[in-house]
């Protein structure tokens, strides 16, 4: 091990068993996202009419669905849309929320008051509900669902970015810059922003799991991915009519969603603890 690694946040992340487990799960998930269709033995949309609603077998590892499609292939291919959904929605909301939050926290005064009352109001509508409302306007589709989740996450990200900005802003190195006569652009970009990024990124890494779960829920409700897409939430929804005849149809995508969410949760918490060693594990 090199000296750079020893004592670094990466070492703390990987020596914490939960953080290590999360990292491993995410690496597996990342491989699924990257390779996707290459891991699937069959075309996920291909019908095998003779093998409908079969249990797991050597030919079909996870069994087949009501059209005789290979569930293993569908789960492998579905990783991409489900995971990317969470990541993209979180990245969008983090970017938008940080911008609003940093401006609000730095400018302060009446502008801050108004922005904060607005975020309070948006946050009074629960995330899922707000996302559903937005999709009702935009129409159900994966893209619209990503946008809806991103919008519904933005106010709380803005709150976090603002509170970090406020705490950084009152530190003496910012006072020193103001006293030197630095301009606002320098102070925001060079003094404040680098100190806001790390806590905001940690916070958003913890949210990815939640975004994935909401995305899957929207697909389940018919507001996200549309048939015949291989999407985990949609697969659970479609399998419900056949769940007593072939319970595996529900189990596989459920496990897939749960394990990826566990991975992101473990990784996010591990990252937070590794970057703030004082917070208890």
């Amino acid at each position, binding site marked *: 091990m090199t000296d750079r690694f020893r004592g670094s946040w990466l070492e703390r992340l990987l020596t914490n068993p939960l953080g290590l487990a999360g990292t491993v799960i995410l690496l597996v998930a990342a491989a699924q996202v990257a390779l996707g269709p290459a891991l699937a033995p069959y075309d996920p949309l291909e019908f095998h009419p003779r093998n409908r609603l079969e249990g797991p077998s050597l030919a079909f590892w996870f069994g087949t669905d009501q059209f005789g499609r290979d569930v293993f292939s569908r789960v492998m291919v579905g990783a991409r849309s489900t995971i990317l959904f969470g990541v993209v929605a979180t990245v969008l909301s983090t970017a938008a929320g940080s911008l609003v939050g940093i401006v609000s926290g730095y400018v302060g005064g009446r502008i801050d008051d108004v922005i904060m009352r607005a975020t309070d109001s948006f946050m009074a509508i629960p995330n*899922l509900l707000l996302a559903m409302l*937005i999709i*009702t306007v935009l129409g159900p589709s994966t893209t619209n669902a990503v946008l809806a989740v991103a919008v519904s996450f933005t106010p709380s990200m803005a709150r976090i970015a603002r509170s970090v900005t406020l705490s950084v802003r009152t530190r003496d190195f910012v006072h020193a810059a103001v006293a030197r006569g630095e301009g606002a652009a320098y102070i925001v970009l060079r003094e404040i922003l680098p100190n806001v990024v790390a806590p905001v990124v940690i916070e958003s890494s913890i949210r990815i799991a939640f975004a994935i779960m*909401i995305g*899957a829920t929207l697909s389940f409700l018919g507001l996200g991915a549309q048939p015949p897409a291989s999407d985990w939430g949609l697969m659970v929804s479609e399998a419900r009519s056949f*769940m*007593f005849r072939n319970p595996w149809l529900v189990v596989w995508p459920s496990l897939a969603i749960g394990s990826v969410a566990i991975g992101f949760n*473990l990784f996010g918490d591990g990252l937070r603890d590794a970057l703030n060693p004082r917070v208890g594990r």
Partner: protein
Amino acid sequence: MRPAYLLKRVGFIAVILLVVSFIVFAITQILPGNAAQMILGEFALPEQLRALERQFGLDDPWFVQYGRWLAGLVSGDWGTSMVMRQPVLPLVLDALGRSLVLAAIALAAVTCIAIPMGVLAASRRGKAADAGISIVSYAGVSFPEFVTATLLLVFLTRPEVGLFPAGGYTPPGEDFLRYLSHLVLPALTLIIILMAHISRQTRSEMVDALQHDYVRTATLKGLPRRTVLVKHALRNAMLPTITVIALDVGYLIGGIIVVEEVFAYPGLGRLLVFAMQNRDLPLIQAGVLVMAATYATANLAADLLYAALDRRIQYD
């Protein structure tokens, strides 16, 4: 706590609900088509459409419509559901009552189980009990409600198991036991995810509280470990936990929407999903507003509880 503080908080919520009503109104205004079109269908003649629009006041400027809707809300006239052709208010209130029962059961159960679990985990930090609770919690928070609900359905309502009804609702006056049996699985689903979340939160606040100097003072006063944990650490750890529980009510509302849908439980969530699928504007507006009001009330209650427990804040 001074009355002025209470007044201020209530006023604050009124303002937020006003803004929420505006957001909801604005979103529903963007929706393509309007009530007149919904009623007359796709092939309505333009003259008919305009006549009906005039009748509903849909040709007025948006702020007039908004004002009229708001005035209706305050006076108890919440409009008429376009699809069900019934007044919205009683529909919403009935459904809300059934949802609140579910939410109350879930919250009560969670609070009683999750907080002691979190305290236990924090006090045995790094030991087997902590690891066990931690693993269960991670699993609990990582399965969305629809997954948990569907898995419960698959394994507990199979014809050969048949422990619980797969869904639906029976009024309590009709058959109370059956009423209860319909509540079990939806409540259980909500409990699993919330319990995991709140116990993790309690644990992390407890770990934080245990590192404070006042815990050292209490220990070196010769107090037993249990007193130090409960009277000194938990008392402080509860403050942030209360806020989190209130925020979880928002989560719970989302969960209720899903759970009611999966178990065909006729609550506000299901009503709202129905309204959205059918673009029933008055119903959507009322449902969202009621949910936001519920959430805001939960947060107000948390704020007041916090204020009662934490004397440091000056509530004036």
